[in-house]
């Protein structure tokens, strides 16, 4: 008991320290020397680079080349909805950057899959969904969960594998899901969610329930047979589903040119008899308008749409991957195409947003993220035996979960 108490105290103390350091880093735009001391020179460079890039990611008002300016109108999107969308984007990014740092500090086990750079692809469509619409995310879809409104506390607990994660810590970190929000639990085995979401869309149709499904996959995942089997079936049955490919040009270390001979993955839809569209996944306006139409099609009984969103993951496949197979120039270019500053600039130009309001939003979200971190760190680690349940619904005379021990 005494030991437990000490542990709890220690945890809180560290959580505070972490909070302070983060707040400081965000205010000054610099980081203090967090985490374990780097050993080699290379490691120091790597850590410094990561931090610099995270700081960049958090600076959503920074300048970018004119050619990346976005324009047009977001159809059927009120000013309030535009701001709401911004909040969800900033919430996703802030949470993501925070988790990256916590991972490097060794605050949780396993690894971390960052979505930084790709948020618009997830958040914009998820924010348009009804709570009971079905989302089939993959391993890099934090934004789908944040976009659909899952509280950050639950997501942080998932990252930490704590008892307050929706699966009580037994599944896999970063594989965000929540039953109340109808975001299914992603399967680490690539493209299972694609098929499951297709099945959910079928279920909606068969049961005559209103509802659409949205499935997310990467460029690499389009080479998997399940991509084909899912799309093909959805095409035949005109299922209420939107398929999103986040083409971030890389599948772990595999360049797009070794995944496919295509340049635009939306062409794959031609094979399934439904529309495929390629868009700039880092242009919130374009993503909004395209996904809105696709959702209308799905809801209206017109069947599936495949949307390829060109985007980029800023960091490694997971945070143990230095991603040194990519050129610095490529990464630099894509950091300039960051969806957040582009959207923020457009909102400001159109007088939907001003500096003050943005600062308010950022402050509130920073606080929300810190509270989520505190929540996760204070959430208990699961009992060692807590995974020995829920294998079956029913009891069977010969089944003994402990038979091997």
């Amino acid at each position, binding site marked *: 008991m005494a030991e437990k108490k000490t542990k709890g105290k220690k945890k809180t103390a560290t959580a505070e320290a972490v909070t302070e350091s983060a707040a400081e880093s965000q205010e000054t735009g610099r980081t203090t020397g967090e985490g374990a001391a780097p050993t080699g020179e290379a490691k120091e460079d790597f850590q410094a680079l990561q931090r610099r890039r995270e700081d960049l990611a958090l600076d959503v008002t920074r300048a970018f080349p004119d050619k990346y300016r976005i324009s047009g109108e977001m159809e059927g999107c009120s000013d309030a909805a535009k701001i709401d969308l911004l909040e969800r984007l900033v919430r996703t990014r802030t949470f993501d950057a925070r988790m990256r740092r916590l991972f490097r500090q060794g605050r949780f086990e396993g690894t971390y899959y960052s979505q930084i750079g790709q948020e618009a692809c997830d958040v914009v469509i998820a924010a348009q969904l009804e709570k009971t619409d*079905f989302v089939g995310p993959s391993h890099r879809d934090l934004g789908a969960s944040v976009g659909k409104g899952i509280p950050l506390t639950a997501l942080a607990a998932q990252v930490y594998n704590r008892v307050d994660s929706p699966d009580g810590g037994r599944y896999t970190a970063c594989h965000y899901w929540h039953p109340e929000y109808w975001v*299914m639990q992603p*399967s680490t085995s690539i493209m299972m969610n694609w098929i499951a979401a297709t099945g959910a869309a*079928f279920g909606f149709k068969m049961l005559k329930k209103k509802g659409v499904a949205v499935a997310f996959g990467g460029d690499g995942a389009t080479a998997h047979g399940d991509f084909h089997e899912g799309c093909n079936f959805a095409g035949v049955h005109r299922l209420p589903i939107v398929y999103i490919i986040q083409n971030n040009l890389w599948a772990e270390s595999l360049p797009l040119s070794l995944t496919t001979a295509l340049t635009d993955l939306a062409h794959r839809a031609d094979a399934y008899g439904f529309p495929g569209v390629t868009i700039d996944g880092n242009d919130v306006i374009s993503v909004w308008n395209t996904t809105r139409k696709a959702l209308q099609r799905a809801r209206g009984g017109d069947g599936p749409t495949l949307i390829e969103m060109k985007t980029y993951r800023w960091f490694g496949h997971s945070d143990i991957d230095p991603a040194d197979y990519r050129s610095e120039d490529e990464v630099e270019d894509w950091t300039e195409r960051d969806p957040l500053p582009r959207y923020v600039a457009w909102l400001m130009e159109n007088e939907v947003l001003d500096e003050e309001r943005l600062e308010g939003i950022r402050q509130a979200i920073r606080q929300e993220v810190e509270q989520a971190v505190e929540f996760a760190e204070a959430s208990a680690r699961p009992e060692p035996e807590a995974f020995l349940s*829920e294998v079956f619904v029913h009891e069977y*005379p*010969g089944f003994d979960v402990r038979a091997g021990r």
Partner: protein
Amino acid sequence: MAAITYIDAINRTLHEEMRRDDTTFLIGEDTGIYGGVFKATRGLLEAFGPERVIDSPISESLIAGMTVGAAMVGCRPLPEIQFADFISPAFDQIVQQLARYRWRTNGTYAMPVTIRCPWGGGVGGGVFHSQSNEAWFMNVPGLVMVAPSTVRDAAGLLRAAIRSDDPVLYWEHKKLYRSIKDDLPEGEEIVTEIGRAHVAREGGDVTAITFGYLLHETLKAAEALSGDGIEVEVIDLRTLLPLDTPTILESVSKTGKAVVIHEAPKVGGIGGEIAAILAEECFWELDAPVRRLTGFNTSFPAAKTMEDYYMPNAGEIAAALRATAET
């Protein structure tokens, strides 16, 4: 009352259960318009329409995997794999997703899915239409497997599987489809409890443990041995996963001797699991080594001469049982 075949029992039960529960749907290859390559699903399309009876493209991964999402939104899916041999493309979806989903989500979702798999040899099908590949799934937590050996259990286990909230692989033996008949009163809702083996014949000298078509060969063997004063207790496993350990142990504790008989190759087969259970749980009751009489450690051959040689038959089974009984 007319006797019906094993495949009639399956067809009738599908009709009854789909009528009873309109969240059920059937999906498989040639299951609708054609009524199934074996006609197990005949009449269902006419009865329930194309919304609930789906002629799937040749996409086994989809057939198995789509049930997960469908079940989550409230369906009770009834996928069919045309031949058990073609379940391998669906393996990932069954093993990684369907079977584990309840555990993975800490009990949030049930997966009330029944996958029907026509299996087994003796039908002149060659390697891709004859396999007994149930052992591929023995190591999968969260999966239930049943294999009816009688007409009554074909109906009873199917109904139990469909109504179960756990994912069930239902192994229907192709050689039994039209070779056995039984009187099943129409309208009787036969339910065979999942998880329980059946003592198909009582005897005190040796226990034979088997399932599927080979139950019938084993019963023949047992009759023959009875004439020589050897009384065989025959266990029809009915449920392959999780195995009914209590029933197996009870019988073998009584007879002290056991022979496991199955069509699949010996290595890694169900017989090995049963032998291990016996060695662990009733070693001191055993009066002889556990014997396994199985298929060969090869693939399944096509030519009739080879196929007949591959399949264990009543004569071989009798010889194995006698050898063990006389040990």
